[in-house]
């Protein structure tokens, strides 16, 4: 009888405990998305009327910014795996710069909406808009900070690359990218 061989799996990138945190975040956000969708279906006309006040172009621009930033973070992970700390630092710095670009554009968008009188209490749609994008916005602040910190640390100590931290940081950034992949069509396009 032929011996069955166990299929070998790749290990998760970065720190295993960090993945528990990422999973918890992802679960929480999925619940929020479901609540939004259910609320929307209960009052579609009002939601669509409020949604008409949104311009999808900043959301689209931010989607491209985050995807490109995610690409840079992935290239940084590859560089550190190959032992090239300086290249990793440059990729992560570029990813962090795009994170700043996202925050600048999102802040501008918030200012524009608030300036036109659309606040949390304007409608249920705008409550969810500020709540969901605000939750994501705060995490992008955190993620941008992590990227910048890892870029600085790998540049400062190239002879002691911390691959696990870089991969964990990149994974967090990719999760934020995935969240915007859902948020952008949910809030701006549907």
């Amino acid at each position, binding site marked *: 009888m032929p011996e069955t061989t166990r299929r070998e799996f*790749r290990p998760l990138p970065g720190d295993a405990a960090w993945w528990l945190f990422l999973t918890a975040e992802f679960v929480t956000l999925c619940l929020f998305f479901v609540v939004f969708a259910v609320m*929307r*279906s209960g009052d579609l006309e009002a939601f669509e009327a409020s949604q008409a006040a949104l311009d999808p172009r900043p959301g*689209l621009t931010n989607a491209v910014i985050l*995807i490109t930033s995610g690409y840079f973070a*992935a290239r940084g992970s*590859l560089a550190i795996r190959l032992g090239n700390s300086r290249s990793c630092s440059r990729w992560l710095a570029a990813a962090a710069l795009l994170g700043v670009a996202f925050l600048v554009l999102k802040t501008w968008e918030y200012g524009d909406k608030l300036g036109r009188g659309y606040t949390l209490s304007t409608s249920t749609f705008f409550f969810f808009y500020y709540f969901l994008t605000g939750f994501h916005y705060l995490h992008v602040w955190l993620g941008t900070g992590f990227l910048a910190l890892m870029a600085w640390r790998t540049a400062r100590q190239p002879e002691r690359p911390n691959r696990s931290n870089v991969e964990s940081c990149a994974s967090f950034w990719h999760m934020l990218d*995935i969240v915007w992949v*859902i948020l952008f069509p949910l809030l701006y396009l*549907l």
Partner: protein
Amino acid sequence: MSRDEGDRPRERSTLLTLTWIALVGLTLGSYGLYESEAGSGLLLAISLVKMVLIAGIFMELRGCRPLFLRAAALLGALTLGIIVSTL
């Protein structure tokens, strides 16, 4: 299989670049569909494809322990399914 075995830097960087191009194309394409007032289901289907690309290629979850992958993929698909059902 360890993460380092079988790594080919040039192939990996090419794969990442192609994935990035695909993601940008899908994002711009979804906006084009929105402009042409295509169905919401199609827009969310594109989102699902993008999620799979980011998770599989950028996050390197492809080939990781299947239980974790299955749970995460199920949750993501379930979320999108519930959203589609409410449209």
